[in-house]
């Protein structure tokens, strides 16, 4: 694909260029909504509508008032703070537990591997609405089932609490961590840990000084997926959370339902900017990992 050979026939040339055009159209399809969001967030009106003033590039048709609204409105600020409080903790939970489990799963002799994997991946495959309602009921009245005894009811409730939302989001993020970390571990050379052990390193030292730096890109990218899962999650938080845990997507959802305001688009634009920054970080990490991998044997 890297360039057209000089001996290409006319047919090949036509195909080569039309293929590029097709791909261009698909890329356009992918980012079209974003191209709409950004200008509309500077709309001077309170609707999701391209006004005649905007189309005429009249400065009167544009304004930054929706950005001001986002930064001054206490509801939006609370939602932003909540999102920032919930997503990192949920991510940390899924990353730490998920990485350990992925290392366990990547060992050569794991009994019931397929079954365990299926359970761990399940939060990704169970339709969200089912997960949300199930968690809603169960977190309201958590219990531990004891065979031949019945239910041991726990004396607290998780619905409408911070930890309830964090637990739910952590569960939803886990499949992403498992998938990316196991994928990185497939390429991990187990002889490195043996070498470290040979030289007298304990399992903890080996993990942090040998294994972790090499699988870090997988862990980070799994973590980013888990973070985005929590950061963009609306169905579960609507059910499990309450006003105290109102996150950005929650605020957007009620906003879309009760009063359409381009503030939602302003928030989205800011988030897009953050996403671009995150993607950039991811790309840097990937390049770093490639450098490290270049050094590792095999």
């Amino acid at each position, binding site marked *: *694909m*890297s360039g057209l050979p000089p001996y290409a026939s006319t047919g090949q040339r036509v195909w080569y260029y039309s*293929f590029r055009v097709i*791909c261009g159209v698909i*890329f356009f*399809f*992918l*980012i079209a*909504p*974003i191209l*709409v*969001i950004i200008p*509309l967030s500077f709309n001077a009106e309170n609707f*999701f509508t391209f006004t005649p003033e905007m189309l005429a590039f009249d400065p009167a048709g544009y304004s930054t008032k929706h950005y001001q609204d986002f930064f001054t409105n206490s509801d939006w600020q609370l939602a932003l703070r909540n999102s920032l409080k919930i997503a990192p903790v949920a991510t940390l939970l899924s990353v730490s537990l998920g990485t*350990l*489990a992925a290392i*366990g*799963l990547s*060992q*050569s*002799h*794991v009994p019931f591997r397929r079954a365990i994997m*299926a359970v761990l991946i*399940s939060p990704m*495959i*169970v*339709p*969200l*609405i*089912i*997960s949300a*309602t*199930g*968690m809603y009921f169960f977190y309201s009245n958590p219990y531990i*089932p004891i065979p031949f005894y019945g239910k041991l009811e726990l004396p607290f409730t998780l619905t409408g609490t911070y930890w309830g939302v964090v637990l739910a989001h952590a*569960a939803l993020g*886990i499949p*992403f961590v498992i*998938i*990316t970390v196991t*994928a*990185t571990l497939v390429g991990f050379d187990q002889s490195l840990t043996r070498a470290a052990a040979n030289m007298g390193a304990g399992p903890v030292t080996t993990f942090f000084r040998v294994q972790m730096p090499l699988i870090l*890109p997988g862990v980070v990218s*799994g973590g980013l*997926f888990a973070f*985005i899962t929590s950061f963009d999650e*609306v*169905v579960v938080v609507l*059910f499990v959370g309450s006003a105290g845990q109102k996150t950005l*997507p929650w605020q*957007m*959802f009620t906003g*879309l339902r009760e009063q359409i305001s381009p503030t939602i688009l302003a928030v*989205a634009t800011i*988030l*897009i900017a953050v*996403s*671009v920054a995150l*993607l950039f970080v991811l*790309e840097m990490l990937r390049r770093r990992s490639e450098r490290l991998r270049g050094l590792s044997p095999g």
Partner: protein
Amino acid sequence: MTEVLAADGRPLKASLNRALRRQKLRALALIAPLLIFILVSFVMPIADMLFRSVENEIVSDTLPRTVQALESWDSSSGEAPGEAVFNALYTDMALATEYKSHTRLGSRLNYELTGVSSLFRKSGRRVKRFDTDVYADAFRDADPAYADPSQWAAWMGDDTVRAAVPVTAATYDAWAKMIVEVDNDDPAKEEPWDFVYTSLYNEAVAGASLPVAVDVSGVEPVSLREQFVEVDKNWLDIDVWQTIKIYAPKYTNGYFLNSVDLLKGPDGAEARPESERIYVVLFIRTMIMSLSIMGMCVLLGYPIAWLLANLKDRTANLLMILVLLPFWTSLLVRTSAWKVLLQQQGVINDVLVWIGLVADDGRLQLINNQTGTIIAMTHILLPFMILPLYSVMKTIPPSYLRAAKSLGATDWTAFWRVYFPQSVPGIGAGCILVFILSIGYYITPELVGGTKGVFISNRIAYHISSSLNWGLAAALGSILLAVVLLLYWVYDKIVGIDNVKLGG
């Protein structure tokens, strides 16, 4: 044959086995925390929810005496039940009204039979003012002991009295429990309510020996059947009683029958009337639309993945950002943006009219129908197709294609016979991922799907938050989950879950 020994003198085989066991344990110890976490925070809630699809304790909990009395009623007799059932209903209703559970039961049964809700609400309001106060007056007039709360408490603590008037004793116990739980009062200081005297009267008439003998023959009996019928003549409706009887057991398959447009009748499952059938159509539609979305994703995702896999890394990574950016933009915002783009006065139609492809009065209907759902969801799920495809294509050496061509294959043959078969695992992975994710979606279809572009999940959400028919929601959810699990199993068999990569 001599046994091979390890360095420490044990047999090598045992030593190896021990090492293997230790390795297994260590692996399990690493997995255990997460496994327990997922089981508790995720699998249990799902199991708990699925249980609601068969659970049906509310009828026998709210109307225990009525349910028991109904056992001897023959639903095919064509007659509403007799006085005994209404006596039981009176006690149940009087208690349920205090617990305020009668209206809850009413709305539960209203899912099965329209009108039960108001029947229960009306009867609950009136049940305290039934004419049964004549019994209470008769007893109190006959002997003041019957008006003394502490005397009642003493009788009910006495086993011989309890044995003589067992029904009254049970009714009194239920009443006392209610007084403590609802009113926070001491039953020994409260005079029993009319329904307790009613039980006592019924037993006295049947010849039971009362704690203090009273001649009740002079009391004009009050027909509770008539009292209830006076409140609402629907108490004579056989359908009401049939519904109560059918839903009396603690577990029911009624919700599942309902989810496939059937009805739980007295003689088993029946078809629902044509005008109420929705779910089978919805399930089929959800499947077909998810398949279309999956097809669209393959169609659009394959060229992109191919391009990305065959470009120089630097360019590919740049273009990859275009794929990942929408993936990381809020789903709600993207869906709203599609609304702006697709509506009849929207950007796409405006452009088409401006170019002249479409007449101004013939603007295309792109939203609030299946087209809208398919476009928006294809967009949302496309990255889930591109990423696995890309990671598979990256592993196909470009030299294979060149070899095929140098052996005389045309471009098409080389692609179709050499490259495509090797990319099939990626297509499989992407397809199943997109399909599984799409059949569970509900927010996007809700916002852009109109009436014909909504999925079964929308109905589940409706039953959870609006109609409060949680049992039906659970049954619909169980069916959906079963379908997804089946697909997952197929996927694991064909592709293997380890082969999913998310671009990292």
